[in-house]
């Protein structure tokens, strides 16, 4: 064993921490060139007529929020600046998603001068199973919600809900998905029967999982993690949180790549000296 193979893991941890903390505090502003998947999502949203109603599904909880909040903010900003109206919802299992939606929508609505009830509505969350709730919403939005929004207001009092009585009245569903239930449920229970287009974003690790569904055309576009959020910020020309952390993200990945190389150099050196068997 040589020294390159014996670095204490705590030193690695410290190097990683310093590598991401420095650019986080002092970003150097690398430029970001949006990838094809992100452009696709942007195009789908961009082509919607003004005033269309879109459902945004907040299917994640505080644990995934550090990675997905910037994407949710970027998407909601984009939707509002295209004058689209938003209904938010969280699938069963994501009881805390409704709270995320509440916080983000409130913040962006103030920024963009949007009004609750006419420009956006938060349907909140329902217990049970997506296999039951989503088909029920396809027939009638009010009944599965027991006729009220997240805050207990009757849906009949909200102007936006006059035109939207069932899922097929929507032009698009945008999801922010971090696991199960997620896009698979929307594909099976909404896209397949109703053919309402689905776009959205997942964590970076969710992207490879979503690829087969994109290939099959069941997802019209998918953003992957923080990079996807940064792409949308560039395309919408609304720089936000994701762009500012891209420097730290790049350095973090480079450091991990460095560890990978370092470990292997150590390994090769040991093998050359004939120290251990491969």
């Amino acid at each position, binding site marked *: 064993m040589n020294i390159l193979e014996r670095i204490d893991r705590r030193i690695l941890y410290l190097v990683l921490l310093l590598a991401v903390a420095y650019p986080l505090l002092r970003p150097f502003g690398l430029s970001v060139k949006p990838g094809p998947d992100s452009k696709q999502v942007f195009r789908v949203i961009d082509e919607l007529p003004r005033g269309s109603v879109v459902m945004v599904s907040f299917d994640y909880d505080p*644990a995934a929020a550090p990675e997905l909040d910037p994407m949710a903010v970027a998407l909601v900003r984009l939707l509002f600046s295209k004058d689209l109206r938003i209904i938010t919802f969280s699938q069963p299992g994501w009881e805390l998603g409704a709270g995320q939606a509440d916080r983000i929508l409130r913040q962006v609505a103030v920024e963009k001068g949007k009004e609750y009830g006419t420009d956006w509505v938060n349907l909140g969350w329902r217990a049970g199973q997506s296999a039951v709730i989503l088909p029920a919403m396809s027939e009638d939005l009010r009944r599965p919600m027991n006729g009220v929004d997240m805050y207990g207001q009757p849906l009949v009092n909200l102007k936006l809900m006059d035109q939207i009585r069932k899922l097929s009245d929507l032009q698009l569903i945008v999801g922010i998905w971090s*696991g*199960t239930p997620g896009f698979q449920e929307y594909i099976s229970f909404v896209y397949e029967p109703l053919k309402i287009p689905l776009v959205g974003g997942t964590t970076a*690790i*969710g992207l*490879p*999982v979503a690829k087969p569904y994109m290939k099959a055309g069941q997802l019209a576009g998918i953003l992957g993690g923080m990079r996807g959020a940064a792409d949308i910020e560039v395309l919408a020309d609304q720089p936000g949180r994701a762009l500012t952390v891209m420097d730290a993200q790049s350095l973090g990945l480079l450091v991990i790549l460095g560890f990978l190389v370092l470990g292997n150099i150590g390994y090769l050196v040991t093998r050359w000296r004939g120290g251990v068997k491969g």
Partner: protein
Amino acid sequence: MFLEEAGAQFLFMLIFVAVVYFFIQRSSAGTHVPEIRKVAGLEYIDTAIGRATEMGRPVHFTPGLFGVDAPETLASFAILGHVARESARYDARLIVSNFELPVLGINQEIVRQAYLEAGRPERFNPLDVRYMSSDQFGYAAGVAGLLHRENVGANIMVGAFAAEAMVLAESGYQAGALQVGGTTFIQSLPWFIVAADHTLIGEEIYAAGAYLSRDPVLTGTIAAQDLAKIGIIGLVILGTFLNTLGLTWLETVLSW
């Protein structure tokens, strides 16, 4: 109405059940018992339990997240059954960490039965089949702590795992346990590949019960699984051939 747009699905299911039944009949009659290829990860489960016993360290098993609505959990029961019987046989201490409440109930029963069968019912400690909270990271924090503190010698993780797989596998490595990880969740497989000694990939966890039991009837059902896959490969080849020629009738048939 009967079979609303699910005719092809119904037929597929029916044929599958029939094939499984046929193979069960054939292998219980003893006429033909198929030979199964070696699955290194499954062989290693016994090795790990044996080594943990030699070192006097406990064995840890966890079925991961989700309940019986996840097929991975159903597969994990058979593997826990085997792990529990081996542990009882060697008289090793077995700790099981659970995420879902009904699964906790089922797993207590599985471990109890295994000790009963091994003739050591008094060695079964219900407190060792533990509830670790139904919060993904609460569970992960609990298991990570347990792996370190109980000085676990063999850590077997087979079932439904998501992002917490990394915490479990890396903590197990740091605690010096021999590890086997298995799941169908492709986003978790890389963590098991890098941090565990052996990984069961996708369908391998469903073959585990039959493989480990060496029971001829169960082994027969693995042959049925293979026949289904060969059928799927055939369909894919035929469909691709037709599609390349511009014919889509097979898709229409399968959507019936």
